[in-house]
């Protein structure tokens, strides 16, 4: 008779305890942040740190009132979602072309695309800043959407390419033989097969755009600033407003962390770049 699905020997117990311990240590800073967000400022800097106290929601209301959280949250949401969709629209056709009609140049073009990611963003900062200034798009959502789309594009093409390559050519050719148009072939054959890869590509780019800080800090401020900019504004030199800082941080990372927890299995599939067969 089977009592437990685990074999409770000494090694197993040690491994289980070690795994839990490691997970706790890695997660601890976030746990601390979450707890601090519900303290008063005085409780927040108490030494030793308080773990039992009466929680307050005051910090959250104050963050919303003082710095208009909803505006920054909407900016984050709009720029990351729109840039992801735009990126997929541009990247899917080219990944399709690279995967199913490769030429001798395909590999060079793809390496070149990735090499644009090796150009440090700061190298392009001044020209991009000046260009947006000339056309009056500084501190606008459009500027961030353009920048996010372009900086994610190479990674999107690579992820989609390695996903498409796992789809057998024959299936697409068969549908073409049956007289399917390109759109029909895409809609009814490729899309169902590549849905997982496209989803994980989109998820990663959503996370990357939501968390992007370099361009957001340098191109936007009060008007189109994202949550990364909001949090940076809570960096007081004394650093004694821990509770409010924690509340603002938690409000900034909460949505994407919960999103990440639910989508992690899907996310990781495309991330392996075909490294896992």
């Amino acid at each position, binding site marked *: 008779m089977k009592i437990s699905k685990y074999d409770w020997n000494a090694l197993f117990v040690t491994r*289980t305890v070690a795994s839990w311990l490691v997970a706790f240590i890695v997660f601890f800073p976030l746990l601390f942040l979450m707890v601090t967000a519900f303290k008063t400022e005085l409780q927040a800097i108490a030494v030793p*740190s308080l773990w039992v106290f009466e929680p307050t929601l005051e910090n959250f209301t104050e963050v919303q009132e003082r710095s208009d959280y909803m505006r920054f949250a909407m900016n984050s949401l709009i720029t990351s979602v729109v840039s992801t969709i735009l990126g997929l629209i541009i990247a899917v056709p080219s990944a399709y072309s690279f995967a199913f009609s490769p030429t001798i140049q395909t590999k060079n073009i793809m390496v070149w695309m990735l090499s*644009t990611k090796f150009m440090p963003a700061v190298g*392009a900062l001044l020209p991009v800043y000046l260009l947006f200034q000339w056309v009056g798009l500084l501190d606008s959502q459009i500027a961030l959407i353009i920048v996010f789309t372009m900086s994610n594009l190479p990674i999107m093409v690579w992820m989609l390419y390695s996903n498409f390559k796992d789809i057998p050519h024959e299936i697409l050719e068969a549908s073409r033989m049956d007289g399917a148009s390109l759109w029909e072939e895409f809609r009814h054959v490729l899309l169902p097969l590549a849905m997982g890869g496209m989803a994980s590509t989109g998820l990663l780019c959503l996370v990357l755009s939501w968390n992007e800080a370099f361009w957001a800090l340098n191109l936007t401020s009060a008007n189109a600033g994202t949550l*990364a900019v909001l949090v940076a504004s809570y960096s007081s030199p004394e*650093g004694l407003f821990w509770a409010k800082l924690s509340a603002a941080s938690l409000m*900034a990372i909460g949505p994407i962390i919960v999103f990440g927890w639910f989508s992690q299995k899907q996310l990781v599939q495309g991330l392996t770049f075909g490294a896992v067969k």
Partner: protein
Amino acid sequence: MSSNATESRFLPRLLMSPAVVTLLIWMLVPLGMTIYFSLIRYNLMSPEISGFAGWENYDFFITNPAFMDSVFNTLILLGSVVIITVGFGLAIALLINSPFPGQSFVRILLISPFFVMPTVNALLWKHMMMNPIYGVFAQISGFFGLEPIDWLTEIPLGSIIIMLSWQWMPFACLIFITALQSMDREQLEASRMDGATYFQQLRFLYLPHMARSIAVVIMIEVIFLLSVFAEIFTTTSGGPGTESTNLAFLIFQEALMNFDVGAASAGAIFAIILANVVAIILIRMIGKNLDN
């Protein structure tokens, strides 16, 4: 027939053109402008000084004592974080690989830092972990009766490395966990029957299986770590002195604090060269693993 052949070459090109053309513009226009700016005198604070500068800006940037420091810091940062995250990522992935109670919850806790944005990461560590009076680290050293360390002043670069490793270790771990799941169970069982030790399995079965995932992790981390900015911007501002200034931050300082567009552009060209040198070395080293 010939029209058919033309069409079959035309369509793939049409499909790839949006991505290729937009990326080409995204690369060439800023690059061209940066090269142009790097060759002229262009300071936002003194617009009366202008004209062709030749190599002046390059000379100015490279003789700045902060330049070599920043290149060195960039490479130390990159190397340390890659080694730490791949090492710990592998160890943790192996540790939690086989089932145990609460495995999926442990997995969720472990990957959470990957979803934390750089500004939050930096402020969380700067204030709540590393503050020399109220921080968690200070409390821990106090508990053991040790002098607290003022992390960001005493070991600024090390502190940034800790923050970045915390952020990227989960990413490495996540990919390694997935790779481990596709290990050949029968092969592992057979090697155990033949009396292979755990380290022999690690050396001859696990590591070869993981080679490609390790290559992918290194590749992606290098891309993001070469231009670390927000973590330095929100914590140390490159200091004290130049101890935690990387190349990206030095260029930012030239451009937006000294308003010297010319020198900053020359610096940007150096950053691009450095990135490409690293990229070439990297592709040489791990390219075999990325080839299909």
